[in-house]
């Protein structure tokens, strides 16, 4: 079944010139969607607006760029116990942490966030999301601070979510993420500029990813 995103609007105090205003968007029935656009085009605004949109069919879990906004507890176990109000499966959580590159995952469970580096916090936050298994996930620049190897793990895990009908929207400048997506939402100045299946858009002569700020190698420009 196709996924239909609602029409979204968002404006910020102190910025009368920028308005996110996107129409209802129909996406493929499988795979993940990439939102692309240059800095300030409204990618994160779309993610935040979608996460705030209340609907019985879609409740989106949003992982923001700035993790301090969501890692409110002292450590991972405390974070998840507060969120879930139930006993945790430490074994599953350790497996996820191991996949995301922690060689001693059990040590991470109660290790204070405050002693972790930015990249470690990002990997813990990603492990947290895959533990929670929401049906709708928005990942905003999830590759910030993590290595290419862990990016590949992330892509693989997102690919596996197809089997359980979890839908993912990935906000990224990273070509590795873009090329594996099923759909692209292309934003310019808060407006929907293009939308469609990735493989169809990529063969259109008039369509270029660089117009939307996509970086072909992570940082070699």
């Amino acid at each position, binding site marked *: 079944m196709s996924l239909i995103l609602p029409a979204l609007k968002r404006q910020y*105090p102190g910025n009368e010139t920028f308005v996110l205003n996107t129409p209802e968007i129909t996406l493929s029935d499988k795979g993940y969607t990439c939102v692309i656009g240059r800095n*300030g085009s409204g990618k994160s605004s779309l993610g935040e607006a979608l996460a705030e949109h209340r609907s019985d069919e879609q409740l989106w879990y949003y992982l923001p760029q700035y993790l301090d906004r969501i890692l409110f507890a002292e450590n991972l176990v405390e974070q998840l116990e507060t969120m879930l109000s139930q006993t945790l499966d430490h074994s599953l959580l350790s497996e996820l942490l191991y996949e995301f590159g922690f060689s001693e995952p059990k040590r991470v469970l109660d290790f204070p966030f405050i002693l972790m*580096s930015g990249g470690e916090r990002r990997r813990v936050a990603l492990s947290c999301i895959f533990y929670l298994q929401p049906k709708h996930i928005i990942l905003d620049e999830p590759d910030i*601070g993590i290595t290419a190897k862990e990016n590949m793990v992330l892509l693989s895990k997102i690919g596996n979510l197809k089997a359980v009908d979890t839908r993912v929207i990935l906000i990224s*400048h990273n070509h590795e993420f873009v090329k594996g997506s099923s759909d692209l939402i292309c934003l310019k100045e808060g407006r929907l500029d293009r939308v469609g299946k990735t493989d169809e858009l990529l063969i259109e002569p008039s369509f270029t990813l660089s117009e939307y700020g*996509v970086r072909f190698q*992570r940082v*070699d420009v």
Partner: protein
Amino acid sequence: MGCHVQVRELALGYRWNDFERLVFQNLNLCIPFGGFVSVSGSNGSGKSSLVKLCLGLISADEGDVLIEGIAVKPGYPEAVRNNRVAYLAQQIEELFYGDTVRQELTYDQQGNLPDQLQVLQDLELEHLVDRNVDSLSGGERQAVALAQFMASQAPLLILDEPSSYLDQHRAALLKHYLSKAHQAGKTIIHITQYNAEIAWGSHSIDLDTDAPEVLEL
């Protein structure tokens, strides 16, 4: 050639309740004047900690950091205030002081507003100048901080994963700027974990494998 930045017998660990994390032990490092050093390493290897030590944002357990032969005093980023060091942080959210981009650019009294405005133009950000900084996207925040950084006259540039939020165009401008700054004789310490970016520098340090040996570039 002398050391622009010298790290001597540095030891650093973080502590929180019963937890402790050792980051450095006996780290020695000399970055010469005019050197362009890429510092890499896995998450938690101490890349950002090294930067914070150089800036005086945290204090070491043992040893010290000298910039131009003067010991960095913890808790007082003197070199940054005196425009001897320009710093571009990994996480820009914590850095803004002004309400608007213009106020932010003029906050640093030693900054040169016309230069910063020119850089904003180069970065295609001139339309942001009267915007409230709270309304900027992550990429725009990084780009405004980049404009401040690129307009600085400081002889030592320290960047901590600066390209994280930047799109293709702005990342290209940053690379070009660093290349020009290096040619002009500035010393650059560039923290990154991306192979392609490591190659931007003339020297590289991998904190996973090189520390804690003595590194003379």
